């Protein structure tokens, strides 16, 4: 696991904008969307695994910022995340290609499903296939959590850890809505940053 960390990013960086790149971007978001169950944070985890670790197109810091912005904006998180990532890599064409790759799989699948949805809902084979995929997705998301958690501890500061624990308790134990938690922490973070910067100026 150590070997994969950040090295890809430093070595590769943003890929050159060629037709091949757009095909690859489309295929990446298409396949990610095709296999992503269970909400926006899941696809974001998979995107990190694919684009940060495997392809080395983005770094972890940018990826986390994209998640923050995607989550706090209107619309599906997966679509918002793809638009941010696509724009980062190749401006407006990149954003549109990534978004298209993300919306096409659910469009195709639901079109087919709407033709005979009772059969799909009751199908035992499809149910177990989904069951297997859910278990894998859970493993991926938890592994990504661990990979993202480690950098928080690197700075040797207590605040990020405290915020992590507080947010986790709020989200998982108290079941407080993510928007409420997010907005509270954004406000806290603004105040904290302004104070920190003012102190630095003196």
């Amino acid at each position: 696991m150590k070997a994969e960390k950040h090295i890809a990013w430093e070595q590769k960086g943003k890929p050159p904008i060629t037709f091949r790149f757009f095909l690859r971007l489309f295929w990446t978001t298409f396949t990610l969307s095709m296999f992503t169950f269970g909400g926006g944070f899941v696809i974001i985890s998979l995107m990190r695994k694919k684009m940060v670790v495997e392809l080395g197109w983005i770094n972890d810091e940018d990826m986390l910022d994209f998640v923050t912005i995607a989550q706090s904006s209107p619309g599906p998180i997966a679509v918002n995340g793809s638009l941010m990532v696509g724009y980062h890599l190749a401006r407006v064409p990149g954003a549109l290609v990534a978004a298209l790759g993300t919306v096409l799989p659910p469009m195709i699948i639901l079109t087919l499903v709407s033709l005979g949805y009772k059969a799909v809902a009751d199908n035992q084979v499809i149910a177990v296939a989904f069951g297997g995929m859910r278990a894998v997705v859970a493993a991926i998301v938890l592994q990504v959590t661990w990979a993202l958690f480690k950098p928080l501890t690197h700075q040797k500061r207590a605040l990020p850890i405290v915020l992590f624990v507080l947010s986790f308790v709020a989200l998982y134990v108290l079941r407080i809505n993510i928007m409420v938690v997010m907005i509270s922490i954004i406000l806290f973070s603004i105040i904290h940053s302004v104070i920190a910067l003012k102190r630095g100026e003196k």
Partner: protein
Amino acid sequence: MGSLLGKLFISFFQIGLFSIGGGYAAMPLIKAQVVDLHGWLTAIEFSDLVTIAEMTPGPIAINSATFVGMRVAGLVGVVVATLGNILPSIIIMLILAKLYEKYAEQTLLKKVLEGVRPVVVAAIFTAGLGLLQLAVVSFTSPDIFASVVFVLSFIALNSRRIKVGPIALLAIGAVVGIGWSFIF
């Protein structure tokens, strides 16, 4: 037909514009537009749609737009409803992405975003635990199966020797799931 497509577009545009915070935030908005306001689906069809949306990949809003679009106006409806749904995202995210690329290095924004990162990690962790519960508890028979798949996947992901991408691993999970159901 034209006015119907117009209504479809405007309905899903509103859903896209006003649903902040993911699929479960969009749900009540979708129901209000699709069931209560326009009567495109019955309440029972809507609950079926929720089940299917949870079973199939992709954002719930896109799934709903496709399902309702297909019901109301066929493939044209699918495209119109989906476009309407993602248009607010496209406009807003392009503006925010441009601002981000321009100002991300500015100290204040950088510090604020840094401060929010622990929340995002906690949110991803929460989603992961929720999925784990769902995977291991939801089905009666593949209980043990799901646990085994989870543990093996986790080991594979953390191993330095095994190099397997997320999509390959998911495909393996699906195939193993089907195989398991035939054996047991």
